[in-house]
C-alpha cells in the first residue's frame, strides 16, 4: 500500500515537472514570464505553509523575509562586478535568515493572534525602515540592478534567457519542495505537527517547543527569502512594496485557497489567485478587487479545505 502510494506520488511529480519543463516552448512570452512568477510566489506560499499548515502558527510577516531576501540579493548584485548569482543567493539568504532569527526570537514567545500580529508588526517596522532609509535602499523608488549570469566558477557562464531562468526557478522550487516534504516527514516535522495538534501535551512529553518553533520560523523565513532572491533576479529590481504587509496577506490567501498543510496546495492557490487576478483585471480594469474578494470569500465558505482538499475528496469519491 505504502509503496503504491509512493509510485503514484513520484509519477505525478515527474509528470508535473515534465510539463513545467516544456511549458516555455509552448507558451507565448507573457505567459512564460507569468508562469515563472507563479512558481516564485508558490515558493513563498509553500514556505509559509510550514508555519500555518504544519505548526499551526499564522505568520502575517512573510513579506519581511521575502523583501529582505530581495534587498540582500540587490546588495550583492550592486556591489560586485560582474554581478554574481551565487553571491546574490548567499546575501539574500543571510539577510532573510537574520531577520527571521530576530522575528522568531521575539514572536515565538506569543501564541495565536498575538503571534500573527507580532509578525505583522515586525514586517511593518522593516517596511518603514526600508521606505525611509533612502540613502541605502533607494526609498520608494527601490533599487535597479543587472541580471547575473548562471555561472559555474570560471568554467561556464550562461546568460539568463527567459527560458533558462524559468528552468532555474523550476529547479530551485522543485528542490525546495522535495526538501520541505522530507523535513515535514522527518521526526522534526512530526514534532511541529504535534505542536499544532496539542501544544501543552507536546511540552509535557518533554520537547522544548520554543526551540522547535524558533527553528520552524527560521526555516520558513529562509525559504521565503529564497523566493525573494528569485524574484529580484527575475525582475531586476527591489522595491519597498514587497515588504508591505499586503504581500504577507496574499501569501496566507494562497495557502487558504490552495489548502493548508499540503505544501503543493499553496502553489496551486498562488497559481489560481494570480491567474484569476490577471483575468479579472483585464475585464474589470481597476475594480477587479471587488470580484476577487467575493470569489475568494466564496472559496472560503464553500471549499473550507481549499482547492486541493476539494480535489482530493472529489477524486476519492
Amino acid at each position, binding site marked *: 500500500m505504502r509503496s503504491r502510494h509512493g509510485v503514484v506520488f513520484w509519477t505525478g511529480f515527474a509528470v508535473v515537472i515534465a510539463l513545467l519543463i516544456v511549458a516555455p516552448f509552448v507558451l507565448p512570452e507573457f505567459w512564460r514570464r507569468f508562469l515563472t512568477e507563479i512558481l516564485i510566489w508558490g515558493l513563498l506560499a509553500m514556505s509559509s505553509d510550514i508555519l*500555518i499548515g504544519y505548526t499551526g502558527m*499564522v505568520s502575517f510577516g512573510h513579506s519581511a523575509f521575502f523583501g529582505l531576501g530581495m534587498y540582500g540579493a540587490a546588495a550583492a548584485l550592486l556591489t560586485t562586478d560582474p554581478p554574481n548569482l551565487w553571491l546574490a543567493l548567499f546575501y539574500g539568504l543571510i539577510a532573510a535568515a537574520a531577520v527571521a532569527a530576530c522575528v522568531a526570537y*521575539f514572536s515565538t*514567545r*506569543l501564541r*495565536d*493572534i*498575538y503571534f*500573527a*500580529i*507580532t509578525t*505583522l*508588526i*515586525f514586517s*511593518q*517596522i522593516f517596511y*518603514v*525602515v526600508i*521606505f*525611509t532609509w533612502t540613502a541605502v535602499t533607494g526609498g520608494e523608488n527601490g533599487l535597479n540592478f543587472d541580471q547575473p549570469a548562471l555561472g559555474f566558477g570560471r568554467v561556464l557562464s550562461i546568460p539568463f534567457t527567459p527560458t533558462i531562468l524559468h528552468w532555474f526557478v523550476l529547479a530551485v522550487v522543485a528542490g525546495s519542495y522535495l526538501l520541505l516534504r522530507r523535513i515535514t516527514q522527518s521526526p522534526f516535522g512530526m514534532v511541529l505537527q504535534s505542536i499544532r495538534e496539542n501544544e501543552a501535551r507536546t511540552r509535557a512529553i518533554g520537547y522544548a517547543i520554543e526551540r522547535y518553533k524558533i527553528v520552524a520560523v527560521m526555516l520558513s523565513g529562509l525559504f521565503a527569502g529564497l523566493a525573494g532572491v528569485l524574484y529580484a533576479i527575475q525582475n531586476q529590481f527591489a522595491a519597498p512594496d514587497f515588504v508591505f*504587509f499586503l504581500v504577507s*496577506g496574499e501569501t*496566507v*490567501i494562497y495557502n*487558504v485557497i490552495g489548502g*493548508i498543510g499540503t505544501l503543493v496546495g499553496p502553489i496551486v492557490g498562488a497559481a489560481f489567485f494570480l491567474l484569476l487576478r490577471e483575468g479579472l483585471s483585464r475585464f474589470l480594469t*481597476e*475594480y*477587479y*478587487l*471587488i*470580484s*476577487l*474578494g*467575493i470569489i*475568494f*470569500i466564496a472559496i*472560503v*465558505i464553500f471549499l*473550507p479545505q481549499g482547492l486541493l482538499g476539494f480535489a482530493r475528496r472529489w477524486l476519492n469519491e
Partner: protein
Amino acid sequence: MNLQFVADGVLTGAMIGLGAIGVTLTYSILRFANFAQGEFIAWGAYFALLVATALGWLAGGSSTPIGPFSFGWGLMLALIVAMPLTGALALGLDWALFARLREQASSITIVIASFGASMALRSLLEFLFTSRPAYFTRELQIAIRLGWGVRATPDQLALVGLTAVLVLALHVLLTRTQIGRSMRAVSENPALARVAGVDVDQVVRVTWLLGGALACASGVMVGLTVQIRPFMGFDLLLPLFAAAILGGIGSVPGALVGGLIVGIAEAAAAATVGAQWRAAVAFVLLIAMLLVRPTGLFVATPK
C-alpha cells in the same frame, strides 16, 4: 518643549481608540481578529457624507455652521443616522460571511475571510466614490490657545468630547444593563453562557452593531479633521490592532487607552525624530509591550 504633540496625539488617539473598541469587542465575543474593521470606518464616513449631502440638499443649504464649529446640525443628524447604518453593514457582513464560517471553520479561515471582505469592501468604495478625497465641510477654523503653547480647533475639542460621551455610554451599557452582562458572560466563556440561558446570537448581533457604530463615529472624526478617502480605514487598521493589543484584547477601557498611547506616541515621534518614523514608533512600543506583558495593560495575566 512644546506640548502641542499631546493635543494632536489625544485627537488621533481618540479616533484610533473608537475603532479599536470594535476590534476588541469582536475579538472577545467572536474570537477572531477582524481585518474588515478599518473598512467599517471608511464606510461609516461615506454613509455620513451621503446623509449629510442629502439633508443639505433637502433643506436647501441648512449646513450653516453652529457657533465656533465648522459643521452644522446636518452633520450631527447624519452621524446619528450613519451609526446604525454602519452597524447594519457589519451585521450584513456577519450574516453573509462570518455566521456561515463560525460553526465549522478554523479561526485562521475566518481571519482570512475578513481579509477578503476588507479587500472587496474597500474596492467597492473606490468604485462608488472614486479615490478622490471628499470633505464634510470646507470651512476654515482658527485654533484656540489652551495655554502652555497648546492650540486646538473647536472641532477637535468637540470630537474629543464626543469620544468621551460614546465611551462612557458604552461603559454603562456593558456594566449596568442585561445585554452588557450577557456580553461579558459570552466573552468569559461562550459555552457556559449558552448553558446559563444567554442568547448568544443576540450578543453577537449587538457586538456587530456596537463595533460598526463606533467605527462610524471614528470615520466621521477622521473625515472632519483630515479627509474622506476609500483607504482611510485601511490606513488606520494597524494602529487599531496596536491599540487593541496594547490595552489588552477584550478590554474596552484598554482599547481607548491603547488608542491614546498610540496616538500620543505617534505625535511625539513626529515632533522629535521626524514624521516619517511615526508609524514605526507605535510598532516598536507594541513589541516592547508584548514582551513585557503579552496580555496588555488592562487584562490580568493568567496565573
